């Protein structure tokens, strides 16, 4: 009963989505094609071409077609004629592609009448399908003819191994043409996920979806699940880490900034009299004050009270603080990322452990499943924790941040405690008392994660967080740009 209630109650960070298998996707297309085929009284091949031309927007297609059918057919590359496509042997025919003219040369033409020998036609299609990955919009091979080759013609021409690839590509255009559909990015997964979240919603929600293959990813940006941090922050954070993480530590340990131009300077000699290479500013490495104020009594550097020195140190300190602040968050982010990886290694050993445990303790398979649950909990919680640090880095302090940090701390402590128990040797794991503790801890971790995500998601939806950066995405970005 209480479990039932938990399931019914909708959590704020959950969004609705649906997972489709390749068969589902095929069926959706077929249904749409059948519908258009009936409503508009055109062949299925033509319905399919028109739907692809209209990016599967059925309503728009029907409306436009009702208004001006000729125009729509022409634009989609469907010239009108009622002849069925077939292979023909025409006396005196010369193929314009290979220039062959033998007797009995089989040839083919789609509705436009541009006729080529069947070998050239097949070669052309395999080139388009296999090498260029085209399917939905392959045109007639004639120079300047934009008529699109329909599915029935392809049926006649395309060999069976090519057909499979061809239908794969066609399915792909269906998913890629629709904004509400996305492929699961996991390797070897062929499913697609449907979700209604739009680009402009991404300031308010973090649309994590879970494919049937278990892969959890963000519908907004295709990255792995990054709740609670919004996509825009994730992008900035990953960018920043790619730029900074390796060098930041070294810079922090070995350099100071020029008090005048802020260039980063490494001290490469023993003398404290520094001259900035860039702006020629002369200063003391010890107190960061103006060198001119040191006179010749430099070694004592007893000018601690000098105004210029204090100011320079202040500026220096500020820049250090911002670097240290970044490193604080980065180190924790990176630590959870690494720990999650290590936990995953252990997860792979878990199965072995469980079998061992079953043997040694006489427990049944179902009785050792608690280790599996613990491992899954560790993975998801660490994933969340990791991104709480990126989130916190961009968070400007207000009265909500304290609650957030408390939640973060609670979850982190629980996760670390569970992680420790999880690593115990099998003999100890078999102890029924420890089993209960692990199960409790697992449940507690999951609960803390839900609390944290509830809180962050709700405040995000209501726009109550204040960030140190702008969350509104300037124009469309991302996406693949193909270069030739």
């Amino acid at each position, binding site marked *: 009963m209480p479990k039932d209630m938990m399931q019914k109650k909708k959590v704020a960070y959950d969004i609705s989505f649906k997972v489709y298998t390749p068969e589902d996707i095929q069926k959706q297309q077929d249904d749409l094609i059948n519908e258009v085929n009936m409503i508009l009284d055109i062949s299925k091949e033509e319905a399919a071409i028109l739907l692809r031309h209209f990016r599967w927007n059925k309503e728009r297609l029907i409306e436009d077609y009702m208004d001006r059918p000729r125009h729509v057919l022409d634009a989609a590359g469907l010239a009108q004629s009622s002849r069925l496509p077939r292979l023909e042997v025409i006396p005196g025919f010369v193929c314009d592609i290979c*220039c062959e003219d033998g007797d009995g040369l089989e040839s083919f033409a789609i509705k436009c009448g541009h006729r*080529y020998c069947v070998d*050239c036609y097949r070669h*052309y299609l395999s*080139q388009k399908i296999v090498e*260029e990955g085209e399917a939905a919009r392959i045109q007639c*091979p*004639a*120079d300047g003819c934009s008529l699109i080759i329909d599915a029935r013609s392809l049926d006649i021409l395309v060999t069976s191994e090519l057909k499979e690839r061809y239908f794969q590509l066609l399915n792909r255009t269906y998913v890629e043409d629709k904004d509400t559909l996305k492929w699961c990015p996991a390797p070897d997964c062929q499913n697609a996920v449907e979700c209604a979240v739009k680009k402009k919603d991404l300031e308010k929600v973090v649309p994590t979806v879970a494919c049937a293959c278990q892969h959890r990813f963000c519908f907004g940006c295709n990255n792995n699940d990054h709740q609670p941090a919004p996509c825009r922050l994730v992008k900035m954070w990953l960018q920043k880490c790619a730029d900074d993480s390796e060098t930041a530590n070294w810079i922090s340990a070995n350099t100071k900034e020029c008090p005048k131009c802020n260039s980063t300077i490494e001290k490469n000699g023993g003398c404290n009299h520094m001259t900035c290479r860039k702006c020629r500013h002369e200063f003391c490495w010890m107190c960061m004050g103006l060198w001119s104020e040191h006179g010749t009594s430099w070694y004592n550097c007893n000018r601690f009270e000098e105004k210029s020195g204090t100011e320079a140190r202040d500026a220096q300190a500020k820049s250090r603080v911002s670097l240290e602040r970044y490193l604080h968050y980065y180190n924790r982010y990176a630590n959870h990322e690494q720990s999650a990886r290590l936990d995953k290694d252990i997860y792979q050993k878990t199965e072995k452990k469980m079998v061992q445990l079953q043997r040694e303790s006489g427990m049944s398979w179902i009785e050792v499943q608690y280790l599996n649950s613990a491992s899954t909990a560790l993975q998801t919680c660490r994933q969340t924790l990791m991104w709480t640090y990126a989130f916190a880095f961009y968070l400007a302090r207000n009265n909500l941040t304290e609650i957030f940090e408390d939640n973060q701390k609670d979850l982190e402590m629980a996760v670390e405690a569970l992680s420790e128990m999880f690593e115990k040797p099998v003999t100890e794991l078999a102890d029924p008392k420890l089993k209960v503790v692990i199960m409790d801890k697992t449940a507690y971790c999951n609960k803390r994660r839900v609390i944290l995500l509830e809180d962050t998601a709700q405040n995000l939806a209501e726009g109550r967080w204040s960030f140190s950066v702008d969350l509104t995405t300037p124009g469309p970005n991302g996406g693949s740009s193909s270069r*030739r």
Partner: protein
Amino acid sequence: MASQKRISKELADCTENPPQGMRISLPNDSDLHKWHVTLEGPSQSAYSGGTFGLFVTLPPDYPFKTPQITFSTRIYHPNVTNDATGSICLGLLKPEQWKPATRIRSVLEAIRSLLVEPNPDDPLEARIADEYKNDRKEFEKNAKTYVTRYAKGTPKFEAVPAAAAGGSDGVGDSSTGRRAN
């Protein structure tokens, strides 16, 4: 190979009845896949009086794959790279627009009309395209300077551009501009 017949036919057609202002030759008689084209600058263009060399390389899978055509003579033009490569930006030559029924003749004719009428909206050299749009006088002056400097006399087909060479023969054939008729 099926392409052999098609290429011979195209070559015969182009040598017997060459496209306007052009001469076609083979640097190596046994290799039908490499052509040299000598193109006279069209009289109504800034390139008038110049003679330009074009490399034509037909891939083994021609006509299903796009021919590669580059300038061997330097030319000041918005749609041709201003370097020794001489790459050309032409819609017909893009793989996704190429049709196997398209003939080399029509590509060569398209290149010639590109000299008469550059396409500054799809430039390879943005600066030259800008100049063409906004300061036509300066553009024509520069184009003519290039003609005087690079495009006088028989064109040289020595510098085989990296894209067209494909690692085969780096050193150009010494018998340049040999006429095949």
